[in-house]
């Protein structure tokens, strides 16, 4: 099972800033292992963030996003204590959702 994300969400002057770290190998499909064989691509393809159940960001990733992806964005609204959830799904169908309260 995928490891948890680290999410920070903080509201200030009507804007919520969200910073997310996801734990993922982000294999490009172009790396060779020690015996010279190509390691198949395995990477997060889609990310979605919802504030109190309403989507505030949808992202699609390619293999060029770095290992252990980082993502930051901002949206209007959001108050301390609101729920902020981030979900991802990868090219093998693995998925993960984590939720924090906006601080």
């Amino acid at each position, binding site marked *: 099972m995928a490891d948890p994300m680290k999410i920070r969400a903080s509201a200030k002057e009507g*804007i919520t800033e969200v910073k997310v770290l996801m734990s993922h190998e982000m294999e*490009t499909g*172009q790396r060779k292992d020690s015996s010279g064989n190509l390691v198949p691509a395995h990477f997060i*393809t*889609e*990310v*979605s963030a*919802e504030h109190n*159940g*309403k*989507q*505030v*960001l*949808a*992202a*699609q*990733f*390619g*293999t*060029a*996003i*770095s*290992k252990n*992806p*980082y*993502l*930051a*964005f*901002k*949206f*209007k*609204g959001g108050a301390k204590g609101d729920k902020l*959830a981030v*979900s*991802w*799904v990868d090219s093998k*169908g693995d*998925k993960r*959702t*984590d*939720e924090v309260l906006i601080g």
Partner: protein
Amino acid sequence: MNVQRREALKAGGGLGLFGLLAAAGLITPEQARAEWNKSAFDAKTIEETLKGLGAGKPESSTEIQLTAPDIAENGAVVPVGVVSTLAGVEAIAILVEKNPNPLAASFTLPPGTEAFVQTRVKMGQTSDVYALVKVGGKFLMTKKEIKVTLGGCGG
């Protein structure tokens, strides 16, 4: 995490993340985006990528800012941000011209989300990096060169 959602995610199978979220009642079907844009992500040139994104030939704009260092200490992790002063930005994409597949990421911004994203990309070599922005159905862009440098000890 909400139990219902966990179950929905487990049962998801081939629906795609946003299809799933829609099925779970978390987002409306209108919000459920298209499947992963294979043709754009598999494209090998900037032109093909723009075509895959339906962006045609975007004009360059000074109202888009690509925040990134001119020089990256390592190509495996290059911080890149896109900010725009334009109102009503609907989507943002980041492209690295000399990567095997230029498209690194695309973002859909629902109303209320600021024209601001930051992430980190891999760069195989020194290259132009493009920030593409969709606003009012129209595509605009800016680009800058980021130099990728080698480390000293010899790998």
